[in-house]
């Protein structure tokens, strides 16, 4: 009976570990507050706080603020310095700061001189949103003989730097015949709709002019015809944009599969301090 009670007490303590960890955050912050001048001990306490965030899988902006409270140049131990740079790179990538991610990971590789395949692959992933020269420099270091894999890596970069096709021919088609551009792009319902509305507005002005209602014809013509004609052109532009976004979404889905398989072989891990 007593064994069961102790087991239950231990398990409840571990279930509510998150509350305990939040209290530990406060504990370490209090230690920092008490001794701000002892830099070595302050660093220790800050790293303990970061470990709590990582152990709780909490990778939000609060964690980046904790990292940025540490000046990594002042870290004497090289192992902790490399861990710091690598962890900060991963977490800034997760928080939409890809420039910082690439910078810190590059610093990590330059200082640690660890040019293994694992690190090079991770660096290419982080450099996918950077300039073309930087990305292709890192990609060529991988020395892949298989061109398929090289193309799949290149897609990572192309998603962010895809050139937008203006597709002038569809716009010109909709200028000539309202609704033709949208219908050719695949949206037949809206194409027919713009054709009908444009013809109806022109026909109504014609009918009014035939009945000698010239003020009405001019007025309704000015009110309706430019709005529907301009709307038709805006609609073709919108469908071009939507098709472009759909293409990017397809590419990202294909890339997701590729990266899933890649990261199973070459996983990214956060290291505790």
């Amino acid at each position: 009976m007593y064994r069961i009670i102790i087991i239950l007490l231990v398990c409840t303590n571990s279930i509510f570990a998150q509350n305990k960890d939040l209290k530990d955050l406060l504990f370490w912050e209090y230690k920092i507050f008490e001794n701000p001048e002892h830099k070595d001990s302050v660093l220790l306490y800050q790293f303990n706080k970061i470990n709590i965030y990582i152990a709780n899988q909490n990778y939000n902006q609060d964690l980046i603020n904790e990292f940025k409270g540490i000046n990594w140049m002042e870290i004497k131990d090289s192992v902790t310095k490399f861990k710091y740079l690598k962890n900060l790179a991963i977490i800034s990538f997760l928080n939409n700061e890809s420039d910082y991610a690439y910078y810190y990971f590059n610093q990590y590789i330059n200082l640690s001189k660890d040019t293994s395949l694992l690190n090079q692959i991770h660096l290419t992933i982080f450099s996918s949103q950077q300039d073309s020269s930087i990305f292709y420099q890192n990609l060529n270091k991988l020395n892949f003989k298989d061109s398929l894999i090289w193309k799949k890596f290149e897609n990572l970069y192309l998603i962010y730097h895809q050139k937008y096709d203006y597709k002038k021919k569809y716009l010109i088609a909709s200028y000539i015949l309202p609704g033709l551009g949208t219908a050719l792009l695949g949206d037949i319902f809206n194409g027919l709709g713009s054709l009908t509305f444009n013809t109806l507005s022109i026909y109504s002005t014609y009918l009014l002019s035939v009945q000698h209602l010239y003020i009405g014809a001019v007025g309704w013509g000015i009110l309706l015809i430019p709005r529907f004609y301009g709307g038709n052109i805006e609609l073709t532009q919108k469908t071009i944009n939507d098709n472009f976004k759909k293409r990017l979404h397809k590419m990202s889905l294909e890339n997701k599969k590729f990266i899933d398989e890649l990261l199973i072989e070459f996983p990214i891990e956060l290291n505790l301090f």
Partner: protein
Amino acid sequence: MKIKKIIILLIFPAFSFAQVNTEFIHHLVSKKLHQEHYIYLNKLNQTIPLNDTVQLEWLKWAIFYKDYNQFESLYFSYQNNSLIKKDSCLLLNASILALKQKPLQINKWFAQTEISNNSTKINQLFTLYNLSENIQNYKPSEHHFISENLHYYFNEYQKYYTKKPMVAAMLSTVIPGSGKLYNGRKKGFFPSFLMNTILGTFAYEAIDKNGINNAYSIFSLGIFSVFYFSNIYGSYHETKVIKQEKKEELLYNVSNHYYTPCLYK
């Protein structure tokens, strides 16, 4: 012995806070550690409940993170706390938060006359709020402490408080869009006037040439009448809306004028 050690390790925490450390709270606020701030106050509540300084810190936390409803519920439960009523910065910021968030029971806060005598700024703020509720009593010569900037908003509110919705409706029947001028919407006059005149000419031309029994004349007359009546009712409705809008603008500017960041200094 072993069981005793286990019990001590499980129950006794590594540290305990028996006193309120305000410098630590200032440290947490300056570093924007809101999570740690909340945990610290909770811990203080557990270790030293019914402490006046802890209650004061909870109220400051509620104001700093802009939750007036929580502040009000805590404030009226801490009635026996003498520290709260001495802290003029807290009370000033609380009244400013009430003006900005405009809760339903705002009059409950501003009915406390004992708070108004805490400091001159709070007294001025309370008098300004009461003036906004009874704007007919506003006289610039009597209230010297009001700045020129705020005088402008008081005059505007007083001017629009006396406007009558029926007058705006009557004006817009004669000239469509003039009700908007009466209400102060100068840029809205021209488009509504143009729209109504154009639709009116369409209807007039159709009835003149084809008579009333034509489909197009019925259609154009219908559209014109709908826009005309919407213009009349809209200007009638807008006079009531503008009174509230001017009051909101006044209270917004009053709260900005009296705001001072002094909670954690």
